[in-house]
């Protein structure tokens, strides 16, 4: 069906296999195609701007759609003519950030974009310098320009409460600005991208294809391994590398272990934000066992460093297997006890029930992923829809709740936690014999690959264009929080200020994942102005 839509719109199919359809769409048909895809049930995953001038193409934009019904990713490629590409944001609001990012980084202009404002670059970044163009080098320091935040009109009756960049709720520097009437939130503005580390540029210019996994793992301090996997899968997809089955199982085990500790961490944070510090302490105590497990299996408590293209670096032997199951027996019981206790606490539940509601329709349009989507009745899970690693062979449930409130997100994570135990047990049980690393591969030139994993926070998409040799031409990781964050202002609207922290936390935001993209002068915290946003409120 999708292929018909594409063909019906004069698209040129560049790649068509069971995982990915890549099609070059003419600019005048781009918006209709995107709209038709969206209506066909494909939601917008992300968009990647690429400087393809070295390939003789010019600037291009890859819109990536996740088509669950066909278990495929569909990539629409559009090439800028005269730097211009029609914007698809008017029909798919989820494309807003991706297009603005391409605008900032590559300098593509999107026709009819509803809010063509800076997203990532700080306000004192000079005009006309685009960091992800090939002529910009990773160690360049552009001159700062003078920036004065314009004076804003204060509206009587509406208090502007700053949340961030430094706020105990936020464990990373981000800016929310809540407009409150009394304690009721009547407006919310988000401004992020304060922690730019320039990873993409660094990977393109400085790193080899087998070094990037270690960089990718450092995108996030909690769910790093899932980024690592997604990257490896993207390259393996591009180069059609066969990964040994045992390695896939080991990846699965580690991914689920990561989900376990990440969810427990989230429970702790949520309890802390709700003032239930005992729960916080106890979940983190239990989490400690998983950190030890990770150390046992990989040598590291965090940032496992296990992946290479084509497999993993360490094997799991019988002794480790036994140990894991042993520890699981205990932790499973403890986890159940603590979480069930919490679920039984009326006060705690009443703080989560019915607040921060994200309706399904809005969620779909924004393209929320992971537990946030599943809590709003959107039945999506990369593990099931686009089976990777060993998930295709394993049995697990995908919890879906219709309520869309914070409690639903809590319960989705609650159920997932126990699913993860189950998945690891299965994987350990079925662990096939064999090699763990396939080093026998050739990297093709300029092949497009896509790798997606279900991170604890949702779908994690990595897009890679190889450069041949041992380099990548373009690598674009898209963390789940990137898609979930735009939903937060919707959730906050009309809620009490007291609930803002738990609502923000309910998407399990990982700001540094989202902010990894670009080099900014490292010493200076960017000043950001919200005025343009405010004008529209």
């Amino acid at each position: 069906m999708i292929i018909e839509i594409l063909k019906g719109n004069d698209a040129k199919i560049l790649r068509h296999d069971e995982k990915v359809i890549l099609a070059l769409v003419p600019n005048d048909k781009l918006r209709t195609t995107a709209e038709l895809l969206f209506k066909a049930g494909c939601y917008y995953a992300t968009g990647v701007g690429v400087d393809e001038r070295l390939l003789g193409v010019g600037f291009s934009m890859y819109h990536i759609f996740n088509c669950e019904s066909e278990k495929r990713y569909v990539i629409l490629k559009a090439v800028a003519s005269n730097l211009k590409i029609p914007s698809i944001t008017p029909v798919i609001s989820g494309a807003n950030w991706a297009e603005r990012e391409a605008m900032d980084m590559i300098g593509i202009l999107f026709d009819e974009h509803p809010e063509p404002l800076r997203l990532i670059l700080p306000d004192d970044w000079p005009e006309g310098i685009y960091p992800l163009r090939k002529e910009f080098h990773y160690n360049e320091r552009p001159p700062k320009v003078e920036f004065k935040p314009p004076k804003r009109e204060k509206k009587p009756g509406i208090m502007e409460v700053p949340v961030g960049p430094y706020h105990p709720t936020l464990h990373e520097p981000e800016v929310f600005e809540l407009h409150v009437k009394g304690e009721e939130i009547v407006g919310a503005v988000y401004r992020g991208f304060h922690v730019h580390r320039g990873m993409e540029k660094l990977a393109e210019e400085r790193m080899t294809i087998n070094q990037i996994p270690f960089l990718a793992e450092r995108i996030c301090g909690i769910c790093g391994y899932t980024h690592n996997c997604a990257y490896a899968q993207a390259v393996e997809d591009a180069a059609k590398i066969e990964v040994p089955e045992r390695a896939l199982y080991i990846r699965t085990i580690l991914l689920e272990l990561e989900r376990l500790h990440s969810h427990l961490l989230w429970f702790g944070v949520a309890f802390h934000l709700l003032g239930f510090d005992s729960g916080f302490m106890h979940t983190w105590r239990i989490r400690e066992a998983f950190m030890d497990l990770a150390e046992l299996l990989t040598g590291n408590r965090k940032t496992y460093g296990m992946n290479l293209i084509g497999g993993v670096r360490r094997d799991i032997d019988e002794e480790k297997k036994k140990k894991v199951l042993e520890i699981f027996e205990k932790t499973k019981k403890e986890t159940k006890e603590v979480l069930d206790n919490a679920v039984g606490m009326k006060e705690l539940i009443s703080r989560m029930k019915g607040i921060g509601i994200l309706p399904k329709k809005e969620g779909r349009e924004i393209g929320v992923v992971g537990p946030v989507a599943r809590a709003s009745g959107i039945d999506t899970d990369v593990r099931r829809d686009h089976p990777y690693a060993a998930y295709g062979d394993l049995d697990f449930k995908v919890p879906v709740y219709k309520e869309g409130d914070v409690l639903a997100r809590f319960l989705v994570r609650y159920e997932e936690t126990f699913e993860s135990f189950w998945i690891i047990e299965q994987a350990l049980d079925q662990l096939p014999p064999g090699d763990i690393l396939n080093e026998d591969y050739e990297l093709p030139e300029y092949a497009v690959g896509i790798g997606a994993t279900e991170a604890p926070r949702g779908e994690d998409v990595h897009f890679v264009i190889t450069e041949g040799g041992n380099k990548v031409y373009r690598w674009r990781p898209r963390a789940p929080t990137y898609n979930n964050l735009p939903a937060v202002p919707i959730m906050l609207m009309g809620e009490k200020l007291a609930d803002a922290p738990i609502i923000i936390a309910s998407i399990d935001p990982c700001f540094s994942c989202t902010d990894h993209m670009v080099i900014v002068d490292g010493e200076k915290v960017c000043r950001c102005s919200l005025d343009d946003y405010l004008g529209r409120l």
Partner: protein
Amino acid sequence: MNTIFIAVNLAFALLIAPVVDGFERKIRARLQNRQGPPILQTWWDLIKLFKRPTIEPQDSVKSLYKLAPYVTFTAVLTAYLIVPTLLPSSINFIGDFIVVVYLLGLATLSFVIGAFSSGNAYAQIGSNREVSLFMSEELLLAFIIGTIAVIGKSLSFDQLFPLPLRISSALALILLFLVIYVASARLPFDIAEAEPEIIEGPLIEYSGKHLGLLEYSIFLKRLLLYSLLLNFILPVQNPTRLIGYLIGIMILSVVYSTFEAYYGRFRIDQAVKLMKKLSAVALVVWIIALVGW
């Protein structure tokens, strides 16, 4: 004699209030599977704060902002002239139940005005919550005062300590126990301060000596309320009173901090509604007291 007793009681309160908090911190830590700080840690914290300089925010009303912590502190301290702690005080005419309640009200008021004067958005929201909670908690407290006054036919402490053994007095003291829990700004009622939500609300701009004074006055207020509750129970002129008092403080600390460890924070509307419901219960208790049970 009387003056000496009061002086001893004051000194005791000033010394012990932070220790009680240290003790509670220890208990909470044990319940949360932590080692916990030493019992004197609260004292060390206070001493450290008293050594630090203070900071005045630019948008604040300086005089009010600076004076408020002192008034808060002394208002609580003044209440110790009336409520005996370690030693039972003989009849003095400094004040009665009403005066104590109003002195605590004065402490809240000056705390809130100081916070409002800081010019910080969070401080205003926090103080707003503080006053909302204060008003609703006062409804419950008013019923308790009324009940106790009806039981004891008096508002003067020398008539009220200890309360006669009746059903209504037991119920009134249980309610007083709850009010004290609410008034001592603990979880789930630390709504005004709520660190993860509004960053300690009214305290947000206070630092150094000011912060030290405000925290000190919170500890003093807790001990005062503990003493008030215990005085209603303990016999006045009895050598066992001293031991009973000290054990009572320990028991209250343990019970309160256990409560605290097992609750999440209320939202302000939930807390106010709870206070309203409890007030309805208090009305029933008051009626029971009227009936004479």
